[in-house]
């Protein structure tokens, strides 16, 4: 833990939304620059391309597009930097990266079916497991 914390430089707080916004672009650029080494570390060449990874990073950032409070953005920036550090320091394993970013949260659910829309919650749960 302390090892990770030492590596993460805590930037000063953003004064306004503009400053926070530029910091977001900064972190996006840093992340994009580290894509080649990530592909090398985790041997992702045959799974995903650089541009795909870039759009995954962008979509991760866009998830929080609605946030306007600079303090919250600072916190998210901190978390993002930490995550990037973890990835670069090989604190994760290949399947973590693939599972979290390449496939995404929905990627592991096989039975994702558009027909599920009209079903009762009982049946949805039933298809998932016996225990609900």
């Amino acid at each position, binding site marked *: 833990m302390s090892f990770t914390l030492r590596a993460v430089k805590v930037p000063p707080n953003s004064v306004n939304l503009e400053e926070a916004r530029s910091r977001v672009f900064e972190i996006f650029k840093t992340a994009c620059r580290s894509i080649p080494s990530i592909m090398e570390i985790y041997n992702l060449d045959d799974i995903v391309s650089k541009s795909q990874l870039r759009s995954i990073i962008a979509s991760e950032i866009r998830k929080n597009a609605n946030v306007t409070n600079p303090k919250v953005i600072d916190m998210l920036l901190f978390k993002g930097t930490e995550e990037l550090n973890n990835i670069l320091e090989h604190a994760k394993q290949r399947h973590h990266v693939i599972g979290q970013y390449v496939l995404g949260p929905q990627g592991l659910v*096989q*039975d994702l*079916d558009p027909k599920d829309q009209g*079903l*009762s*919650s*009982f*049946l949805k749960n*039933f*298809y998932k497991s*016996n*225990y609900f």
Partner: protein
Amino acid sequence: MGLGLLASRAMRPLKYSNSRVFIRSIVSKPELQSPEASSAAAATALEPDLPPRSPVGGARVHFPNPEDAIEVFVDGYPLKIPKGFTVLQACEVAGVDIPRFCYHSRLSIAGNCRMCLVEVEKSPKPVASCAMPALPGMKIKTDTPLAKKAREGVMEFLLMNHPLDCPICDQGGECDLQDQSMAFGSDRGRFTEMKRSVVDKNLGPLVKTVMTRSSVPHNFWLNRCVRFATEVAGVQDLGMLGRGSGEEIGTYVEKLMTSELSGNVIDICPVGALTSKPFAFKARNWELKGTETIDVTDAVGSNIRIDSRGPEVMRILPRLNEDINEEWISDKTRFCYDGLKRQRLNDPMIRGVDGRFKAVNWRDALAVVAEVMLQAKPEEIVGIAGRLSDAESMMALKDFLNRMGSNNVWCEGTGAQPNADLRSGYIMNTSISGLEKADCFLLVGTQPRVEAAMVNARIRKTVRANNAKVGYIGPATDLNYDHQHLGTGPKTLLEIAEGRHPFFSAISNAKNPVIIVGAGLFERKDKDAIFSTVEAIAKKGNVIRPDWNGLNVLLLNAAQAAALDLGLVPESSNSIESAKFVYLMGADDVDLEKLPNDAFVVYQGHHGDHGVYRANVILPASAFSEKEGTYENTEGCTQQTLPAVPTVGDARDDWKIIRALSEVAGMRLPYDTIGGIRSRIRTVAPNLLHVDEREPATLGPSLKPEIKSEMDLTPFGSAVENFYMTDSITRASKTMAQCSAMLLKK
């Protein structure tokens, strides 16, 4: 038990706190005027500084005759007990747990381990409390130095030849000898000689013997198992052989224990001499999670505890229920659990065009079933519940098929036209514990020893206790008590009904006669005629009185009583011949020979058993150890199972599958939770919600319309061919297969 005593000692405060208030009322009883009684009363008043105690294990005293009460003092407590109690029983009522080895409340008193020594005032020596009757005014002291020293000495003798192999002994952790030597024994022994060793015996595939552990010289103390075999199980195979230090328990000639209750010797053995063979070296008892549930392998509904570790059932033990199984269970109940790990269905499967099953997901499987089902005509849809089905799933199945327009739902084993209208016509009206009051039994077409071993043990107990007469009609069988084989079929039944048979006078002269009819007769075409003949006997022999109902039906399957309560009765008797869609909910023993070849069969169940051979779609369900379900036993007592382990693979609970299927088929059932189903059951059979209560039948058979049909004179068949293999779980069990191979080999 020993540790409990220690704990009670530890909890006792050293000084009396004055918080306890004594309320004494003034009594004007003449008996208190006598010097003895008044001195006793004075003694009561003199001993106020003792904390209250509660009886051991919630022991209750029942005074059959209030005049016979006597007063004794246990550690200073005055105590009223009925005459004929032993000192040990008096101590239990007083809340003192006396250590014991040879004494067992359900076996005869042997009095040979001497562990239960207590001091009695004015007795020169400590007395063996288990064999000593309590006398009026006796002053019993259980924790005096004399008693403690006596116990320590006995313990040293008991441990003299006992091997020090607790680390490799299966009893370790649940061993009376371990506990009591910790609580009452010395911390060192003086025995320096070689310990004795004894050759192990082969008692069959169920009971493992380590005879060296039973070797205690001069005290043939362990003979609990010999007494159990002789008194409860009714097999005279075990005996005490040799004498002195050469004494041992054995069968002398090479012989296996041929009892359906043999597993119980494992429980009653206070040391590790007799342990479970299938469970040997599998787990330690402190690793196990106990789940209190009930057994479904027969219609008795024995109370059991499933011990599991993680997802695996490790063993099954009996639970005390005086009304049903006392504290015994049959070998089938105890050792069937390895069947829960074999042959399990873990994925929904659809049979392809090549005849092979292919695993699919639930979505596809249910879609296929629903599609075929909607194409079939309502009268061509048939649903059959299996012998292990719980009430909830049977309710859901019936509701679902009724919504589909079909009323052809029944439970296997209830025959073509079961009588579900009068509850007294299919349950055990006397109740299992009520059998003990009987003095004459007539068994019609039933062999309780293989159909319901615990009921048989009750009958045997009654025969031993009050020399009840037993008459048996059916194929030749081996009942382990004295009985008269009256005949093999309806002919004898007619003779008795007409009063021509000598056994009729035995029934009519008996105070509490009992007639037990086997559920195997449900399958006969002439069952109505047989039942009306039996009712005629009951009427003539005065079997049904306001205070006594001796007319019983002994059911075969766990599901039967609940199925009939819920009204699972087929609309037409030949629905299978014209069926196009058959829904088997765990039904394995249905005769599908007559089923048309183009019929679509869905098998919902937990084992790949007989039902799977003909199935087109398999829906995996959970077994009784994995679900919460309501079962009604043969005497009409409702009980529930609780899940002990998670389901296997992608299996689902039975009622959930039917509920999901109903939605896929567009006939959605209106309940989403087990509570919802139970409120639905409340409208059909409210007795199924009164858990652990026996609901007697209210109406007698006198309301039944007169039936005029001829009896077929073919003899009765036997309902259970192989005691060890009756359902899909036991058929999958390796242990049960070994038992059938070895024990039924003649």
